[in-house]
């Protein structure tokens, strides 16, 4: 395997985690990852090997996703039966319920908000790298992040998703 392939492969688990959170369904998420990897491979000459590959790969995933959002469309609250079974069998039911609520809230925020919440909150991407990934100024990253969090919180505090649930997560 070439060095560049090795380097790309190293990042696949993170791309998958991000994709899994960004869209619904394991297969659809992996489709997004695969499309991203094929695009990255096709433009591998464009990668500056002196730089960290992670923001470069995530910026490709961002553009693949943004340009084909319809293809990877989230189907709100589509939880598979096996996931429901897992939830029912979970030792701490409240944690699982909260996760479902948060998942539902995440389903409902805009694509833009979901991306920034996950890039920073899940992938722990720096604000600077996030700006690069999304192709926006860092000031926009900060203001978008703030709005996205407020929105997610509003959805979580919706009467149908009682806030008491989320407090039980430890």
């Amino acid at each position, binding site marked *: 395997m070439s060095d560049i392939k090795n380097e790309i492969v190293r990042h696949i688990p993170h791309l998958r985690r991000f994709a899994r959170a960004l869209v619904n369904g394991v297969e659809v998420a992996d489709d997004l990852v695969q499309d991203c990897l094929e695009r990255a*491979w096709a433009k591998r000459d464009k990668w500056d090997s002196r730089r960290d590959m992670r923001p470069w790969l995530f910026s490709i995933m961002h553009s693949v996703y943004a340009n084909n959002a319809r293809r990877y469309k989230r189907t709100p609250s589509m939880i598979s039966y096996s996931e429901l079974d897992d939830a029912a069998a979970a030792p701490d039911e409240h*944690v699982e319920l909260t996760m479902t609520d948060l998942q539902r809230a995440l389903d409902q925020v805009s694509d833009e908000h979901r991306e920034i919440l996950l890039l920073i909150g899940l992938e722990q991407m720096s604000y600077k790298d996030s700006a690069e990934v999304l192709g926006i100024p860092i000031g926009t990253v900060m203001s978008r992040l703030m709005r996205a969090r407020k929105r997610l919180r509003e959805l979580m505090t919706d009467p149908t998703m009682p806030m008491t649930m989320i407090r039980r997560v430890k």
Partner: protein
Amino acid sequence: MPASARTVTDTHLQSYVDKRLNRLQEAEVEKFLFDHPVIKTELREYQLFNRSFHHMFDSVLDERLPKRLVEFDQEVTKNRISLAQAAVVFIALSVGLVAGWFGRGEFGPVGDPVAGETTLAMVRDAFSYHAVYTPEVRHPVEVPSSQQAHLVGWLSKRLKTKVTAPNLSETGFNLLGGRLLSSGNAPAAQFMYENAKGQRVTLFTRKRQSGEADSAFRYASKGKVNGFYWTDSELSFVLISDASKEQISKMAHVVYEKLNK
């Protein structure tokens, strides 16, 4: 969030949530939050979101990578159909065909599991013609591959659009030739291929009809015969063979690649 008249900005607050401040800045924010309990609660919840994201999705990091994700350096993975996707939807049609939908549109809209009636009529015709001509020993084709230029020129003229017989030799199948047929009221072409074992494949095509949308590869079968069909901007295609579904899906990809070069 009230950002006025203080040294602690919104950016500081978000950075505090993400634990990206130095100790001095962090202490400043904490002092500020002591006087603003409502904001403090809000930020705690944001931190909880971050932790919850990890709780929900970190297990993905430990999953074994599916094969298809590590083969991105192989050209053939483009325009793929995964078997997992093949399992998504199977809908029985009244004519005895089974049409499947491969979950996503490589070249078109996603969400309509079954092709329109116009397309399905073509698929039925293609299966019938496949059954009629592939067993032919002496006259499987009207124009043999030795006259390929003439064949595609003639068919292009009759179909009123450019048609080509893609080279499938990399799959072991070589062009035998083709014939002019019809589907509905439209002229259609059938190309026939054969491998060293005498197994035959037909590629049936006609001009895209009004109301036919671009579509992903779809699967259809009749008895032991399998087919994939799709529509691009100009033409609709049906690729049929008694080869396995996997084999024919691979072939369909090759056809698609060749036609879109």
